[in-house]
C-alpha cells in the first residue's frame, strides 16, 4: 500500500512538473518582454521631457534642482559599459526592480499634478504619464516573476522613498520646475532600467545573438 502511494505520489509530482515546465515561459522570453516594456517606458519619458521643454520657459533652468538630487541618486548603479557587464545578473535585476519600485509613488503624484498643470500640452502629458504608470506596473509584475527564477539576490529591493511631498508646489513656476525636474529624473532612471534589462537579455540569450 505504501509503495503504491509513493509511486502514485511520484507520478503526480512528475505530471505536475511536466505541466509546470510546459506552461512556464522561458527566461529569455520573459526578459525580452520586459525589455520591450522598459524600452517603451524610456521612450515615453523622453517624449515627455521634450514636450515639457517645448513650452517651458528656459529662465528658470539654472535654478532647477540638479540631477544629483533625484530621490534615486543614492542607489549605486553601474555607469558605463564595463561596469554593467561585470555586475552579476541578479544584482542588475535587483537594481532594476528597486528603481522601478522607487517610481511607483512619484508617478501617482505626477499623474495627479498633470491634470492641473499650467502647461499648454497638459492633456498630452497627462495621458502619457498614465501610460507610463501602466507600463511601470506591468513591468514590476514581470520583474517579480523573473526575479523568482534568478535567485535570492534578485529579489532584494532597495528602498528609495520619495520625500518630495504630495504636491509639486503652489505657484506656477515652482510647479513647473518640480514637474520638469521629476521628469528628468524619471527619464534617467527609466534609461537605467532599460539598459540593465537589455544587458540581462543579451547575457541570458547567449545562443540567440539577435536578442542583443
Amino acid at each position, binding site marked *: 500500500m505504501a509503495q503504491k502511494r509513493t509511486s502514485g505520489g511520484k507520478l503526480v509530482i512528475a505530471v505536475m512538473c511536466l505541466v509546470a515546465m510546459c506552461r512556464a515561459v522561458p527566461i529569455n522570453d520573459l526578459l525580452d518582454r520586459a525589455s520591450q516594456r522598459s*524600452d517603451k517606458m524610456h521612450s515615453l519619458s523622453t517624449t515627455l521631457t521634450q514636450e515639457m521643454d517645448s513650452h517651458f520657459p528656459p529662465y528658470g533652468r539654472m535654478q532647477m534642482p540638479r540631477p544629483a538630487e533625484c530621490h534615486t541618486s543614492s542607489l549605486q548603479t553601474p555607469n558605463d*559599459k*564595463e561596469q554593467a*557587464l561585470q555586475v552579476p545578473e541578479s544584482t542588475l535585476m535587483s537594481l532594476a526592480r528597486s528603481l522601478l519600485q522607487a517610481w511607483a509613488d512619484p508617478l501617482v503624484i505626477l499623474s495627479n499634478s498633470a491634470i492641473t498643470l499650467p502647461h499648454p500640452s497638459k492633456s498630452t502629458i497627462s495621458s502619457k504619464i498614465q501610460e507610463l504608470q501602466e507600463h511601470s506596473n506591468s513591468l514590476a509584475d514581470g520583474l517579480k516573476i523573473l526575479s523568482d527564477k534568478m535567485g535570492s539576490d534578485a529579489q532584494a529591493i532597495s528602498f528609495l522613498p520619495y520625500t518630495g511631498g504630495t504636491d509639486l508646489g503652489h505657484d506656477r513656476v515652482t510647479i513647473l520646475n518640480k514637474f520638469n525636474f521629476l521628469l528628468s529624473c524619471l527619464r*534617467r532612471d527609466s534609461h537605467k532600467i532599460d539598459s540593465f534589462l*537589455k544587458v*540581462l537579455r*543579451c*547575457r541570458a540569450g547567449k545562443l540567440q*545573438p539577435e536578442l542583443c
Partner: protein
Amino acid sequence: MRTRSCLVVLCMLSAVGVCSSTSAPGVPYIRDCRSPEKETFSCWWEPGYDGGLPTQYRLYYQKEKESFKECPDYVSAGENSCYFNKIHTSFWVEYTLRVEATNAFGNSSSVFEIPDVMTYVKPDPPVNVTVLVNSTGPTPYLQIKWRPPPNVDTKSGWATIKFELRHKRNDSDNWETFNLDSREYLNLYNIEPGALYMIQVRCMLDGGSWSDWTKTTFAKMPDIEKPLWILVFAFCLIPLLATICILALKREMLKQWVLPPVPGPKIRGVDVQLLKSGRTEDFAVALIGNVNFPMKMVPVDQVEEYLLVSDSKEWLLADPYTSEKKKDPMVISAGLHLESEIQRGKSSPGQNAWDKAGDRKDEEERFESNVSQSERNLLNMEPMEKPGYPSVDQAAFTNATQPLAHSSYVDIQQPENSWEAGPTPTDYSRVNEVNGEAILILNSKNVSDGSDVQRQEGNGEVSAPDDYSRVKEVNSDVVFLQKHESVDSCGKRKEDRCTGWTSQKPAMPLELERSKGPCSEMIGNGYVDSAPAFTVQLPVQV
C-alpha cells in the same frame, strides 16, 4: 612748441599701438558634445577672441561631487576639443565642464553643464549601404542592406541600435520612411519600373538622437520589356478569340456533342413524321369501328391477297381497299380472325358463316386466339398508325429482320403477343373443306411454312402459306374456294397466285393493274369483308 606736440603725438600713438594688440582672451564656450557609441564622448569649444596673444585653452571637468580634473585628451577629437575615453566617461552622471582661455593678459572661461551624457549620444551613420535589383520573381524589387557603424558595439546589449530608411523617386519630393528597429535589410516592392530611386539610412542608439542620413544611394529599376509582352499577348489572344468565335458559331453542334439528345421512344416500323402529319381520323376510325386492315407495302411482285370466305354480300368490299396496301398471308388469316371477333363482339352479317363453323370450336378458338393475337398485334400497331403508315410499314418491312412487319395492321384488341414474332403460320387454320353453301370449315393445322413466312427480303416479300385457298369465284352469296396445293412462297410466283389473291397495295397502280389483270374476275381487290366495321381503312401512301 613743435617738439612738445610731436612728443605728445608719439606717446599717444605708441599707447594706442600697445592697447590694440594685446588683451585678455575672449570667453570660449562649449558648443557641442557628442557620444557616438555610448562609451566615450567628446566636447568642442569655440574660442573667443584671443586678444592678439597666444592663448592657451584648457578644459576641466567635474563629475558630480568629485574634484575638477583636466581634459585627458585634447587631440583625438580635433582642434579645440576634449575627448573622454571609456574610462573617463560615465553615464547618468552629471558633468560640469569648464573651458579656460589664457594669455598674457589674463584668462576667461565658461562653464558647461551636462546633466546626463546620455542626452548627447548620437551614432555615426550606417555604412555599406548596398542596393540590388532582384528580378527573379514575378515582380522586380529592391534589396537594400547596410551595416551599423563600426564603432558601435551591438553584441553586448549595452547599446541597442535602431535603423530608419527612407526612399523616394528621383523626381519626387516626398520621402517614404520605414522604421526597422534593429533589422539590417529591407526589400522594397512598391517600386515603379524604369524609375530612379534615392535611398538613405540612419540609426539611433537607445532612444537618443538620430544619426545623420547616409549619402544617397541611387537605384534604377529595369523597364519591362514591352515589345516582348505585346508579342506574347498577341500570340495568346488571337487563338483565344478564334476559339471563342468558332465555339460561338458552332454552339449548336457543341451542344449536341456535349449534351447529346436523349433519344425518344421509337417503335420499329413507325415513322414519327408520318404520324405527326395529323391524320388522326384514320386511327380513330380504326380504333372505334371500321377495322380496316392497313395493307402493308409490299413490292410489286409480292402481291398479297386476302381470302375471306363468307356468304354475305356485305363482305364484299368496294374500292377503298384497292388502294390499300398488300397484306401478307398472315393478315389474311388475321382478317379471318377479326371476322370471328366481330362475329363475337359485334353484329355482322358475317356471323352466319362463322356460326356454321361452330363445330370446329377448338379450331375457332385457336383462330380466335390467333385473331386476338393478330388483333392485338394490329391494335398494337394502330396507335402508331397514321396516315403515313403504309410507308412506315414498307420501311419497316424493308428493314426489319422479322418476316412480317405487321405494323400496318390495326388490331381491335391489345394483343399480348408481339406481332413481330409474327403470327406464326402455325396459328392459322387451313381450309380443309368447303361445304356446299359456302361454309367455311376451318381446320387448324400447323403451317409449316414458317420458313416461307420468315423469309424477309428487302423487297418485303412475304409468301403466302401453302394452305391458303384461292378464291376461285365469288358469287353474290358464295365464295368459292379453290384448293391450293402448292402455293409457292417465292415471290416470283406472286403473279400466279395473283389470280386468286387480292392485293392491297398502297397506291401502286402498277401493282394493281398487274394484279387486276389475272384477277379480273375478282371483285374489287377481292377482299371480302363481312362488315363495314371490319374494314380497316388504310391511308394510302407510298
